[in-house]
């Protein structure tokens, strides 16, 4: 039995927000809460390590790799724009560029960690700085990795010519995640390389 | 009459809290009476009657005045309760120790209490002695609270509210008892298997009694010629790794100081009375009284246990 059978004439069309966008905002909110806790722990423990390497002695500001990551936000934004305009080849190129920039950033993190572990003797168990640093930067790197896997999957689909203009909305949602990852890096970068040193 | 009732305070912080509690109870009690009466009245007066079948009551969607009223009044009540609490928080937490205050450092262990009187050079365990405080010349006891392992909490309800002992986070509390007597409590923060038997005993004594107790506690262990065998067992088994007996080679810090063991009414942090039989049973196998506690059974034979107990009994 249907209770409401006759639709009333409507002054305005009934349009609600897109559920993909809302869902992604919610995910971003949850992830932000997780990162906030790690950032708070990092800030609280600044200067409290009893022994071991200290941030000001061993950390070098990763300017180049930060530029890579932040530029990838621009390239992904442009990529989605191109797809919305139907320019699938430009989209594919820009998407690939995003992937490369993200991978470069991860490579930079790996390089930095290699230096810290082997040259400076700083591991996650060395002292409070080691624990909080590797946890916070590692959590972020984990989110970058997840993002890269998603981006790579889209790149594969794109290589087979399966990504079309009608998919632009979904890729817009994925790019929101990528922008979030970049925004988190801005915070982490500030906390670790400026406030903490 | 419960010896641990929060409504029978004998010490300044507990009394101050009691005053606030009564005020809060009166206010919340009044709120309860009013709202409950309204609920009971509504439930009875507005019951559907048989003749009401199929007839809906007047649909009232709200009332701004009523909403305002029952927002403003609670806000006022909340402000009053907040101010009352803030005053008591300040008076207890920000209290300054007067010059004659006794200073005690309390260190929580799994599952016993260590008491150190740094100015009086006394170290003891499980039974805290403090002097009664004369309001004219106050001698409260200020306690610094530390922990050697996990979180604990010091709660003797008739003397003060509880304060936690947290490793790497020194805390402070104080008591100012007006009556002499024995006051009971126990650890109030789950600290492991034997949390339930980490009992507190606070002996509030007259100044004279307290000074005498301090004098006695500050002495090294009594000479023990007659119990040479027991002392030998103690010093050759692992006992000395955990326990201190002042004036001997035993200087372990993991377990309670035993120098004046027999001056205590109980053993195992208040779990059992300090009798010869209990002491022997405890040494034979601590898990008889406190399964899971950290003192191991040393696997001693009967003869060793007897001589060891004889030795313990000389530690007055």
């Amino acid at each position, binding site marked *: *039995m249907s*209770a*409401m059978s006759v639709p009333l004439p409507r002054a305005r069309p009934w349009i609600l927000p*897109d559920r993909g966008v809302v*869902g992604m905002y*919610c995910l971003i*909110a*949850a992830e932000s809460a*997780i990162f906030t806790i790690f950032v708070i722990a990092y800030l609280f*423990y600044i200067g*409290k390590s009893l022994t071991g390497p200290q941030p000001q002695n061993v950390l070098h500001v990763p300017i180049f790799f930060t530029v890579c990551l932040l530029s990838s936000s621009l390239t992904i934004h442009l990529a989605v724009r191109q797809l919305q305009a139907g320019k699938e080849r430009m989209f594919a190129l820009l998407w690939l560029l995003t992937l490369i920039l993200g991978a470069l950033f991860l490579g930079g993190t790996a390089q930095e960690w290699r230096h810290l572990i082997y040259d400076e003797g700083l*591991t*996650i*168990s060395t002292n409070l700085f080691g*624990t909080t640093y590797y946890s916070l930067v590692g*959590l972020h790197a984990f989110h970058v990795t997840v993002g890269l896997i998603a981006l790579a999957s889209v790149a594969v689909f794109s290589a087979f010519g399966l990504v079309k203009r009608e998919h632009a909305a979904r890729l817009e949602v994925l790019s929101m995640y990528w922008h979030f990852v970049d925004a988190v890096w801005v915070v982490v970068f500030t906390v670790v390389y400026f406030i903490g040193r | 009459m*419960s010896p*641990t009732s929060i409504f029978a305070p004998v010490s300044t912080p*507990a009394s*101050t*809290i009691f005053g*606030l*509690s009564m005020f809060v109870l009166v206010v*919340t009690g009044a709120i*309860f009476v009013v*709202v409950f009466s309204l*609920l009971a009245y509504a439930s009875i007066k*507005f019951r*559907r009657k048989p003749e009401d079948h199929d007839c809906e009551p007047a649909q*009232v*969607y709200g*009332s701004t005045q009523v*909403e305002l009223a*029952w927002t403003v009044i609670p806000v006022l009540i*909340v402000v009053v309760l907040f101010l*009352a*609490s803030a005053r*008591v928080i*300040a008076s*207890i937490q*920000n209290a300054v120790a007067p010059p004659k205050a006794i200073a005690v450092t309390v260190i929580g262990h799994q599952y016993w209490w260590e008491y150190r009187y740094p100015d009086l050079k006394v170290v003891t365990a499980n039974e805290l002695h403090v002097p009664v405080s004369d309001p004219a010349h106050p001698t409260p006891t200020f306690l610094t609270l530390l922990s050697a392992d*996990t*979180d604990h*909490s010091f*709660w003797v309800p008739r003397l003060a509210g*509880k*304060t936690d002992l*947290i*490793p*790497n*986070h020194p*805390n402070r509390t104080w008591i100012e008892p007006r009556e002499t007597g024995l006051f009971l*409590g126990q650890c109030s*923060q*789950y600290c492991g*298997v034997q*949390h*339930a038997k980490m009992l507190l005993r606070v002996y509030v004594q007259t100044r004279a009694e307290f000074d005498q107790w301090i004098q006695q506690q500050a002495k090294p262990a009594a000479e023990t010629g007659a119990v040479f065998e027991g002392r030998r067992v103690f010093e050759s088994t692992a006992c000395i790794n955990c326990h201190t007996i002042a004036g001997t080679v035993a200087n372990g810090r993991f377990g309670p100081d035993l120098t004046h063991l027999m001056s205590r009414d109980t053993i195992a942090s208040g779990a059992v009375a300090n009798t010869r039989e209990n002491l022997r049973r405890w040494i034979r196998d601590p898990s008889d009284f406190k*399964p*899971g506690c950290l003192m191991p059974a040393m696997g001693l034979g009967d003869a060793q246990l007897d001589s060891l107990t004889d030795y313990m009994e000389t530690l007055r």
Partner: protein
Amino acid sequence: MSTGSIAWDAAAPERTPLVEILHGWVTTVDHKRLGIMYVGYALLLLMAGGVEAMIMRIQLIRPLNHFVSPEVFNRMFTMHGTTMIFFVVMPMLFGFANYLVPLMIGARDMAFPRLNAFSFWMTAFGGLFLYSSFIGGDGLYGAGNAPDVGWFAYAPLTSQTFSPGHSTDFWTLSLLVSGVGSIGTAINIFATIICMRCPVMTLGKMPLLAWMNLVMAGLVILAISPLTAAQVMLMVDRYLGGHFFDTQAGGSAVMWMHFFWVFGHPEVYVLVLPAFGFASEIIPVFSRKAIFGYPVMVAATVAIGFISMSVWAHHMFTVGMTSNANTFFVLSTMAIAVPTGIKIFNWLGTMWGGKIQFNTPMLFCVAFLFQFLMAGLTGIMQGAAPFDWQLTASYFVIAHFHYVIVGGILFTIFAAFYYWFPKVTGRMYNERVGKLHFWIFVIGFHLTFTVMHIPGILGMPRRIYTYEPGRGWDTWNLIITAGAFIQAVGILIFLGNLAWSYFRGALAGNDPWDAWTLEWSTASPPPAYNFAVIPEVRSRRPLWDLKHPEDPDWKYE
């Protein structure tokens, strides 16, 4: 085309094989089926949590009892708390939300049906994993390796030093897994309510149950995440040699407490808001009046959501924060009492002037009002920090929170069961047996939890496996245990009623209660697609408008 005839026996429809039925349930993405599975799962775990409670109460029936060892007792209180909060009340409420929200907002399903199924199975697996801890270690009789660190798992008790072995890991990992499920469900509920309401159901026209679940979902998103973060930190400490809570290395045990309670306090509002939702739907229908002050109820709910994120350290009044910090948390805690009280008054205002029918759902709701009032007042008592310095970590606070969770939340859950049972099953429950359940349970509840305030006042701390005689606690503990047995009987009657009525209850029809929200406009049980035609609404009570065309709500709203 073949002209041969085909034998067709129309009189004997094929019975679906059991394997197919089970497969349908296991692979379903239908919000109604997932809702039922959540609720069924929660009822199962309610039994487990209840047994854990009974074991504790038998051990505490008299001083120095030897019913179970301290090791087993400590596992019991840890598992009881963890089970009831994460694997009974949360799944129960998620189940009701899953079932009811799409129906109430005129949608065909949740926003993300596959995420819905994934979240359910994550939660279910988390609970299974937690309970697998009973096997192993010392085996079932020694309660295996089940967590024994308390449901809030304070550091440094959870470090490798003080908890070698895996009991802490079972706690951490099972909650990490089910936490993912909870966040998934919350995202789903949030997106469903924002994006899938039927025309023209603006947020101001949606049922209060939907509002409560919306704010609840927001709180889950913001509050479970800190717990996840803290648990990851704990695993880093335990397995990677980290020092987040390692006090020997300069780490802070208090930081764990902050992180845990930043989760822990909003969590209790996650539990209570949907309960408020049930009350807000049921009380109006059985008072035969619209809810009093709908806009104020919404505002109060949102206010509670926000303020609840700022009160957490009232669980930490005794840890040695500064007097300024303690004072701040007194203020925020007292503040949250205002919107909460407003809601109680609005429910009262709904009953006022009504024509109240005391069916079983309404009985439970009225008891909820009484008990939640008391629980709120004991909460205010503890909000006064110095009073809390005596009351916290004692049986008084246990009495308080059971008053909220059992006396408040469980009572409204019972009400919700009885109220929506006809919709979900198409049959009426037995009203007399329902009332029997109510009276037996309410008596048992008060014998246990009203009396329980007294040992707290007399100095009995929590989490103790036994206690000394001569403290004045003995008789009270005996009465408390007796009440627990009575409640158990009540629950068995409840389950029996549900089971019997499912098979033998009278047919209910679409709308047995003469109610006003959209779920009552469709069949009982609803078809898989919920509504043949997506409804259009003009007010908060679309069915009232249909039944009273001369006096519709939209003229007054």
